[in-house]
């Protein structure tokens, strides 16, 4: 049935006790080379979903299938960039990346590991800092090392848990640009949590919007229809940008709270969350395009 590279089916997480599940009936898919962002308020279970994808946490029900195989436990196929970089402070920058590379290719010679690690550190612009300890780096540089470490193992999929959340706006911008460049060059499949609407529009092909927890669910999937070669400098000149941005902000501010309302349950099919393209005006929308939700092109439910 599914042809997605990664598909999440019926995922549910409940903690022991009488509390309602944090989320349930989560279905979505990610295609190879796709960049998917997930947005939602705190407590909707975004990080839990990412941890389940990483294999670090178990779901209460449902499963994840990647490349035809069920995800059970952590794997080198999925690289993770942690929220607070999680570099080992006693290792140099190079050793941190080399540690990961050595885990991926245990048979490689020291020289080859060092050469490979250095290449990825140069890719994130840290070629000059490979012998430093993480404590000597700024927050943005540490996060870059984390990104280089995740990319260096050449995973089939990259998982990023709010990688830029702790950074100041300027640094965030430069690293976003770098990430964009790398992803465009490598066609890496990425799943990323973010709180930043602009970041999601800049980076993503698809943005998954989650309603508030508990009982969170995927409210809708927003396709970012702007051309892929967008840059931070000029994406706000695109007329689509504000339409998409308004749609996302509007969701976060107004609609995410009461999405669990009764009138949605009629229209909402958790197995096929509505796909919307707020960037396109209705008349521009290609008729009969490859949507599953053809009739619900723009605004879907209880707006």
């Amino acid at each position, binding site marked *: 049935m599914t042809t997605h590279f990664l598909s999440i089916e019926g995922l549910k997480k409940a903690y022991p006790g009488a509390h309602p599940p944090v989320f349930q009936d989560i279905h979505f898919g990610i295609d190879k080379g796709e960049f998917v962002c997930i947005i939602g308020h705190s407590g909707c279970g975004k990080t839990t979903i990412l941890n389940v994808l*990483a*294999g*670090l946490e178990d779901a209460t029900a449902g499963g994840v299938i990647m490349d035809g195989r069920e995800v059970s436990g*952590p*794997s*080198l196929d*999925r*690289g*993770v960039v*942690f929220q*607070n970089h*999680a570099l*080992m*402070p*006693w*290792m140099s920058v190079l050793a941190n990346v080399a*540690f*990961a590379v050595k*885990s*991926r290719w245990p048979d490689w010679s020291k020289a080859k590991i060092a050469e490979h690690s250095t290449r990825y550190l140069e890719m994130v612009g840290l070629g000059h800092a490979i012998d430093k*300890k*993480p*404590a000597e780096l700024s927050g943005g540089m540490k996060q870059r090392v984390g990104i280089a470490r995740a990319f260096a*193992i050449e995973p089939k999929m990259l998982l990023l848990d709010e990688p830029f959340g702790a950074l100041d706006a300027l640094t965030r911008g430069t690293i976003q640009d770098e990430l964009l460049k790398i992803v465009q060059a490598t066609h890496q499949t990425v799943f990323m949590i973010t709180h930043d609407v602009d970041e999601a529009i800049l980076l993503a092909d698809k943005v998954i919007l989650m309603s508030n927890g508990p009982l969170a669910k995927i409210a809708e999937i927003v396709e970012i229809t702007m051309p892929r070669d967008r840059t931070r400098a000029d994406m706000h000149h695109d007329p689509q940008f504000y339409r998409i941005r308004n749609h996302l902000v509007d969701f976060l501010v107004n609609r995410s709270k009461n999405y669990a309302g009764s009138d949605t349950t009629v229209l909402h099919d958790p197995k096929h969350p509505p796909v919307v393209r707020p960037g396109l005006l209705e008349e521009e929308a290609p008729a009969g395009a490859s949507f599953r939700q053809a009739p619900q092109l723009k605004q879907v439910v209880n707006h």
Partner: protein
Amino acid sequence: MSSRLALRAGLISLLLFLLFIGTWSVATRPVEATDHGADAEYAALMGKGVDKASGFPPPAKVGEAFVTYLSDPFYDNGPNDKGIGIQLGHSLIRVGIGFLLAVAVALPLGFAIGMSPLLFQAFNPFIQILKPISPLAWMPLALYSLKDSDISGIFVIFICSLWPMLINTAFGVASVRKDWINVARTLEVGPLRKAFQVILPAAAPTILTGMRISMGIAWLVIVAAEMLVGGTGIGYFVWNEWNNLALPNVIFAVAMIGLVGMILDQCFGVLQKLVTYRE
């Protein structure tokens, strides 16, 4: 800046030392025999002569002991007359063996306890009860069951070094940042590599702190243990000189104990610096 501070601190230290020696010599200066109407010969017979032998030794006498013992630290004239170097050596060997045995037990066990909340809870009551026992309380049991005073001394050092190391290792291992463990998990790092390359370096500062505390306690305990078991060692030396009423030698030995203890502590301080990381 800091070198000037060190210089000034050094000057004050020197002043404090001189003040201490000065007070000491004033307090122990020879007391003039008071005239009780009896003649000096009688006073001398009564032990109240000019050069009071039984009084607390003045600094000069202790200084003589320093010179005598330090000029030939390694002589050996039979069981009751050995150089200070040999006595300290015996103590250090006992401490070293006992301490290393404790390391061999505490590190693996602490690792296991730290990794497993189950083992931690299971071991905890025993650790809590055994930890506050004065190591010397084990001495009779050790002497009875080991039947050797030397080995009993080592056992006492072992048992007193064990607890701080065990507790610190378990604590250090248990509180390794979850993020680092998760990194190792997502990289599918094997258990041995994880233990030696992630958990050990992450917990090393805490473990080294435990070792430093253990070494401090071991050096405190060895003196008391050697007073009990006798034979050799700095503790025995102190007790022997007390029996000889040779207080200058006792003071000399006390100073040596402090000096060696300080050097041991500094060594562990250096080791600690080596494994400490900045986050």
